[in-house]
């Protein structure tokens, strides 16, 4: 199909506007006044939940029923977590686990 530049620009604009509105929402709701107690509490504990959900989100398309059953993904997530637990320094943890993942998906799996 012939690329339609104007139409593509419109789709990009719509996506941008929707995204900006979503991002502005919590600031519009909670930005003006003193934070209610519960919102302050949520601001503290929500990242813990969201991080787990984001990890699930990253791994959502991993197939558990077909080879390699997500082994490279889960193995590297585990290694990354253990490294971070020991080293408390995210740059080596991320670099080692990502490099290992890239090697694994090319060679073993």
């Amino acid at each position, binding site marked *: *199909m*012939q690329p339609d*530049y104007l*139409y*593509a*620009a419109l*789709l*990009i604009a*719509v*996506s*941008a506007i*929707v*995204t*900006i509105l*979503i*991002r*502005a*929402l*919590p*600031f519009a709701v*909670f*930005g003006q006044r003193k*934070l209610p107690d*519960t919102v*302050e*509490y*949520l*601001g*503290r*504990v*929500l990242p*813990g*939940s*969201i*991080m*787990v*959900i*984001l*990890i*699930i989100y*990253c791994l*959502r398309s991993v197939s558990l029923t077909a080879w390699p059953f997500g082994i490279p*993904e889960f193995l*590297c*997530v585990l290694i*990354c*977590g253990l490294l*971070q*637990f020991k080293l*408390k320094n*995210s*740059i080596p*943890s*991320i670099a080692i*686990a*990502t490099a290992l*993942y*890239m090697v694994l*998906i*090319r060679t073993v799996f």
Partner: protein
Amino acid sequence: MLPIIFSYLVVGFAFGIMMQEAGYTWLHALFASVFIYSGSLQIALVPMIVAHTPLLVMAASAFLINSRYMFYGIGFTERFKKQGLLYPYMIFAFPDEVYCVFCGTNYPSDVDPVKCDLWSAVLCHLSWISGGVIGAAFGDLIPLDLSGIDFAATCLFVCIFVNQWMEFKSHLPMYVGLASGLLCLFVLGPDNFMLPALSLSLVLLVILKKRVMEKEES
């Protein structure tokens, strides 16, 4: 920070290549990366452009894909306000990875945290934009196979998770996230689980507030 810059360059680059293969120029990639600045939405956008998706359907999809951002701002209002005139920019330039960095930052005491926040946000945005533009302009010239490098984003989330685990006494919020995430994933499937999972964990956290706070303050 460094891992994000690399992963942004590469994932942005992947987006640029997708745009180029769909027949669009670096200019489209530039506008998308500057103004949308959301990896998951931009990657989903390319096939939707090719399929000539109607604008309203696009708007609804964009909302569903990115609705998780609604939860990110909670807890950052006071911190971002310190940017003064640039407050709106901080609200805008707030994708998953930047959210993660901000959740995990413990700046050394000799640097200005307000400036650090701003520069982190700007650097991430710039690396995302450069990745997209370079990919769309020169993607076909670079023969390197970088597939799998986007796994760095997953690792980043894992690292922040571990930091949070060590920092907080109550691990209930993590279990809440795990339970609601897995439940929604299995019931609703990989394409629709994010918003319900986030909402469910928010509700559960409010219900469990007393227990979490007791543990935290013990």
